[in-house]
């Protein structure tokens, strides 16, 4: 592989007492399509803000095309998205595109950008008068205006309906096929599937998993099996086939496993004296915390109130 275009080396970033990124290292090569997956507050946006030069790390180094991203020259080949709510309301769509294009040596013509994202007839509309979906499309369009080699997309299609989402993904894939490096954050598994080949799972400020898409999808399919068993019986649960992790949550014990049916069959077959059985989808965070931490104690504590909604598997499209 050639020299990495994005590189984080042992990066830590705090906001006061809160550690947003904790000793993170990550290297992305030319042409890679990387998905950053994780719940809100996991550190994804902080990671992007270090790569795009808005924030600086408290410790460690960040490199973009081999330079400090706080230097403008490092960002000459970078494209990012604004949050769609933050577009300057009084400027027209075409003007915002011109403002961004004016920063790059060889930008796409305004008409081409707007056409790619179906905004052609809105060029003269003030951004304040756009619908949410149109703003979202404009925001993503802005990331490509400068024909960047590296594109950072922060939750590119959050809040869009299915059709609009697919249109946007098509436009992004079309651009990717030209060889650009893309880093996309999302808490929707489906979005990551559509845009990424490699997946980096971030939780509580750390990289929990970094693998190719199929491997991560397999991990994400884990289920939580909740049962109440006498304390003396708990040791037997560890021995059940296919159980990845065993953890206590209040009076019940939680088993994490890729195949919940097999676990339930084994519970019955082995005559484990359980009651109050329940099977739930595991959130990605839970799945990855269990898989990557040998000791379910410390890091699990933050994700432990696991009855909370499970973003990836419940909010996202069912797979």
């Amino acid at each position: 592989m050639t020299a990495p275009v994005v590189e984080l080396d042992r990066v830590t970033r705090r906001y006061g007492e809160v550690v947003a990124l904790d000793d993170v290292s990550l290297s992305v090569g030319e042409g890679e399509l990387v998905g950053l997956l994780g719940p809100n507050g996991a550190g994804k946006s902080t990671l992007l803000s270090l790569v795009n030069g808005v924030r600086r790390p408290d410790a460690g180094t960040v490199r973009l095309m081999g330079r400090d991203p706080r230097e403008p020259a490092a960002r000459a080949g970078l494209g990012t998205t604004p949050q769609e709510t933050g577009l300057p309301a009084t400027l027209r769509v075409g003007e915002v595109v011109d403002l961004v294009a004016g920063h790059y040596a060889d930008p796409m013509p305004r008409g081409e950008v707007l056409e790619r994202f179906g905004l052609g007839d809105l060029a003269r509309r003030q951004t304040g008068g756009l619908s949410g979906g149109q703003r979202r499309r404009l925001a993503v369009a802005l990331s490509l205006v400068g024909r960047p080699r590296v594109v950072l997309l922060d939750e590119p299609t959050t809040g869009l309906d299915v059709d609009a989402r697919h249109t946007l993904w098509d436009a992004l894939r079309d651009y990717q096929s030209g060889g650009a490096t893309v880093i996309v954050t999302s808490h929707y598994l489906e979005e990551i599937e559509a845009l990424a080949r490699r997946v980096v799972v971030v939780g509580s400020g750390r990289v929990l998993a970094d693998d190719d898409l199929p491997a991560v999808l397999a991990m994400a399919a884990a289920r939580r099996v909740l049962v109440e068993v006498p304390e003396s019986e708990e040791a037997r649960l560890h021995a059940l086939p296919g159980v990845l992790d065993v953890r206590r949550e209040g009076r019940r014990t939680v088993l994490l496993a890729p195949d919940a049916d097999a676990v339930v069959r084994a519970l019955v077959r082995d005559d484990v004296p359980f009651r109050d059985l329940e099977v739930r989808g595991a959130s990605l965070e839970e799945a990855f915390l269990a898989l990557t931490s040998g000791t379910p104690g410390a890091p699990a504590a933050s994700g432990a109130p696991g009855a909370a909604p499970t973003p990836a598997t419940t909010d996202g499209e069912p797979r």
Partner: protein
Amino acid sequence: MTAATPSAPATRAAGTRSWLALALLHTRFQLLESVRVPIAVIGNLLFPSLALLFFVVPQPAVAEHPLASVAAVAQLGTFAVMSACLFTLGAGVSEDRQLAFDPYVRTLPAGAGPRLAGRVVNAIVFCLGAQVPVVLIAVLLTAASTSPARFLGGIAMVPVVAVPFTLLGLAIGYAMSAKAAIAVVQAVLFPLAFAGGLFLPPEAFPSWLDALSQALPSRAARDLVVQVTTGIEGSAWALPVLLAWTALFAALAVLAYRRDEGRRFR
């Protein structure tokens, strides 16, 4: 559509555009945004003109005296510059920083310089614009008269006086949230203007206030403008005092910009 893609990440010299091109770009869009909210422009023009109309024009002692009128106009013109700089930059910058678009613009391949240049040029255009009604009222309703050279000198002083207050405005804008910035701008602007002799001439001050006043940037700016427009010799301290404040405000502005990382969450 697909025909255009191969050119996308083509190998080309990864360089930023020239400083001047970027500064012009930001100036253009700053002006465009200002003009789209006309009330901001009008409000800015209004106060110094009203002050002239209500406090100077009805006083025959000033309004019928050519030099006194010019001095009064110079004072309010200086106030217009201070006010435009502090409001468009102090309040404007802090408001922009709270929009999600600001951190986005910081990710574009341009440094702080061109953006700041755009803001400063925008503020100076505002300052010059604010002189128009003041001068019109002075010409139509007072006995103010001065030589063309002195008049042009007065106009040339606008960007000079604007520099320190631009820097102060930037320091406030980058150091504070929008709500705090507006309060601070008002708390700084009016006392400075009053104690600097922009509303009442310093000749009307008690001696202690006059002495204190000499150390203020507003007084120094006012003295310079009055000297240029009336030709009456003033304090020799005005220029060094103004330069010292300019250096201090520049340091504060740079510090505030460096520390800023957009909105802060705790």
